[in-house]
C-alpha cells in the first residue's frame, strides 16, 4: 500500500465510521421508540443534534484539561477506527492488531475522566468513578475473550483473522468455532456500550447524567460524536472477531447493525444495576463463560 493510499484510508475510515455510527444512534433511538410504542425521532435527528451543539454560541470550557479530555475521548475512538479493518480498507490493522485496539479503546474513558475531573462538579466525579469501575468490570471478560480468539486464530492481526474466517465460509466463523466466547463477548458488549442494566454511571435520576453534567455546546457535541464511534467500534470489533468480518459493505453493514441491535433491545426493558451488582454480575457470568470457552479452545 502506498503512503498516499494509506493517508486517504486513514482519513476515510473515521469518516465512514462516523456516518455509520450516526445510523446506529438513529437505530438506537428508533428501537427505543418502538418498544415504548411511539414514533421516534426523524431520520436526520442525530446529525441535527450534533450540528446544533457545535453551533451554540456559548461554549463553556472549564480549562485546558477539560478540552484535552474531550479530544482524548473522541481521538481515542478515531484511532480505534483506523485499526479496525472494514471491507476495502484495512488502514493500520496490519500494524496494530487486536491487543493495541483493546488498549486504544480504554483511552476515551480515561480522557473523559480527565475532562470531567476538571469540571469540579461532584455529580460528574461520582459518575466518572462509577464509569471507571464499570470499565474494570467489563474489561476482564473482554480481555479473556480477546485472548481466546487470538489463540484460536493464531494471530492478533485483525486483517488475518478476517481472512482466516472468510476462507472457511460461515462454518469457520468465530461464533461457530467458539460459541461460549462469543456469548461472553456479547455480555461484556453491553457493558462497553454502557446501556441498561449497566448504565449506572449515567443515571440521570441520581447524579444528573454523571460525566455529562458540565458538558455543553461543542463538548457535548464531542460526546455525541464519541457515541457514534463507540457503537460502530463495538459492532465492527464483534463482527470481525466472531462473524467473519465483511467482504462487501452489503453483507458487512447488516452484520454490524444486528450486533449492536441486541444490546439496544435489552437496554429498554431493564432498569440499571447498582455498581457493585454490575461488578458482581460481570465478573461472575461472562468471566465464567469466557473461562469455560477458553478451556474448550485450549484443550
Amino acid at each position: 500500500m502506498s503512503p498516499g493510499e494509506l493517508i486517504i484510508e486513514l482519513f476515510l475510515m473515521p469518516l465512514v465510521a462516523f456516518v455509520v455510527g450516526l445510523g446506529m444512534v438513529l437505530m438506537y433511538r428508533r428501537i427505543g421508540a418502538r418498544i415504548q410504542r411511539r414514533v421516534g425521532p426523524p431520520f436526520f435527528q442525530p446529525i441535527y443534534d450534533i450540528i446544533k451543539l457545535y453551533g451554540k454560541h456559548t461554549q463553556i470550557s472549564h480549562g485546558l484539561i477539560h478540552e484535552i479530555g474531550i479530544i482524548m475521548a473522541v481521538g481515542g475512538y478515531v484511532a480505534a477506527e483506523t485499526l479496525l479493518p472494514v471491507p476495502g480498507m484495512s488502514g493500520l490493522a496490519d500494524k496494530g492488531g487486536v491487543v493495541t485496539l483493546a488498549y486504544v479503546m480504554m483511552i476515551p474513558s480515561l480522557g473523559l475522566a480527565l475532562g470531567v475531573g476538571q469540571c469540579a462538579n461532584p455529580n460528574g466525579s461520582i459518575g466518572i468513578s462509577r464509569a471507571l469501575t464499570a470499565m474494570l468490570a467489563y474489561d476482564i471478560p473482554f480481555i479473556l475473550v480477546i485472548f481466546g480468539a487470538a489463540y484460536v486464530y493464531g494471530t492478533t492481526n485483525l486483517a488475518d483473522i478476517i481472512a482466516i474466517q472468510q476462507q472457511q465460509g460461515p462454518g469457520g466463523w468465530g461464533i461457530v468455532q467458539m460459541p461460549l466466547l462469543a456469548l461472553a463477548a456479547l455480555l461484556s458488549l453491553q457493558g462497553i456500550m454502557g446501556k441498561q442494566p449497566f448504565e449506572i454511571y449515567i443515571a440521570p435520576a441520581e447524579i444528573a447524567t454523571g460525566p455529562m453534567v458540565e458538558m455543553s455546546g461543542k463538548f457535548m457535541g464531542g460526546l455525541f460524536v464519541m457515541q457514534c464511534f463507540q457503537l460502530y467500534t463495538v459492532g465492527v470489533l464483534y463482527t470481525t472477531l466472531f462473524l467473519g468480518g465483511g467482504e462487501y459493505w452489503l453483507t458487512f453493514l447488516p452484520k454490524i447493525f444486528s450486533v449492536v441491535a441486541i444490546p439496544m433491545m435489552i437496554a429498554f426493558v431493564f432498569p440499571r444495576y447498582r455498581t457493585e451488582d454490575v461488578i458482581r454480575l460481570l465478573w461472575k457470568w461472562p468471566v465464567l463463560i469466557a473461562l469455560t470457552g477458553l478451556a474448550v479452545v485450549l484443550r
Partner: protein
Amino acid sequence: MRPENYQAKNHPPSHEFELNFGPNHPGIEGNYAFKVKLNGDTVLSARADGGYLHRGFEKLMEGRLWIQNIALVPRICVPDPVPMEVCYSLAIEELGGLEVPERAQWIRVMQLEMSRLAAHLFAFGGHAATTGMYTTMFWGVADRDLILDRFEELTGGRVYSIYNIPGGVRREVPDGFLERMSSLLDYLESRLPDYDNLFFRNQVFIKRARDVGAMTQEQALKWGVTGPNLRATGLAFDVRRDDPYLVYDQLDFEIPTEPGGDALSRNLVRRSELKQSIRILRQVIERLPSIRGPIRCPIPNPLAWNVPAGESYTRVESSKGELAYYVVSTGGDKPYRVHVRGPSSMHAVQVLENLAVGSRLEDVAQIMFSLDACPPEVDR
C-alpha cells in the same frame, strides 16, 4: 468562554461531602429539594427543603368565596386532584348540613377511583424512570392519558375537573360514558400482565428495590405514615373502609397489604390497588344506571352563600394517603380558615429524611418516588 461557576476550593481531606438534590434535578418529583451528606455512596443525613411550590393556598382561600375555592383546591395536588375537590366539598356539606343525593355520591366514587388509577400509573411509572427503565414510564403515562380522556368526557377538563361542588356534581354522566369506561377498564386489565412482566416481576428491578427505604410498622405508625406506604408495612388501614365517606361502605373491595415496608412493597401495593380500583369502578358502572335522581341538592345562591358557623374535619383516602381538610366558618361568605393536611407533608419531609439515612446515593430518588411524595401538598 470561561464558566461562571465557582473555583474549586481546597478542602481538608475528608470522606464526607454534601450533594444538592434538586430543585432542578430529574430524581426529584416535582419542584422540591433536599441536601444529602454523603460518605462515599452512603447517605449520612438528608435535609428536605420545600416551599418552591408555595402559593399560600390557605391564605388565598380566606379571601375568596366558598364556591370560588372549588377552582383552587385541585391545584394543591396536581397528579391526583379529585380527592381535593371531594374532600373540600364534603367539609362544606357537613358545615351547611347538605344532603348529597345518592347518585352524586356514586359519581364521586367513580371519579375518585379514576383519579386513583391515573395517579398510581403515574407513580410507578415515575419510580421506574428513576431506576433507568423509561419504558414503564412511557407506557404508564400513555395509559393514564386514556383515563384523562374519560375525565375530559365526563367533566370537560383533562387534569383539573372542578366537577364536584358542594351539594353534588356539576353535570350528568354523558350517554354511553359507562360503556366506554367499561371498555377502558378491560383494556387496562389486559395491560396489567404486561406491566408485571416488564416491571413488577423484573428481576433487576426487584434486586434494586428490595430493602430500599425499608421501615417497620412501628416506625411507620410513629412517623405518621398513611396510605399505600402504611399498607406496605402490613397494616390494613384505609380511610375508605375504616372511616367511610360517600358510598364506600356499600362497595366490595379489599385492602391489599405487603409485609416488606420497602420500595418494592410499596410498588406492589400500588399494583394491587390498581386491580381494586378497577373492581370498584366495575361495581359503580353496574350500579349507577339503577340509581336515579338528581345529581345535586339545591344550594343557596353561591355568590351570597353564608355557610353556617362551625368547623368540620373531613378525611378522604387519596392515592398518596390520608387527606384531610379542616374548615372553620364564622357564618360569612368566605371561609375563616381552611387547613389542608396533605399526606405528603409527612412522607416528603420527616419520613424521607429518616429513610434516606443509611441508604445509598442511587436509592435516594427511588425512596422519594416510592413514597409517592407530592411536593405541592407539602408547600400548599
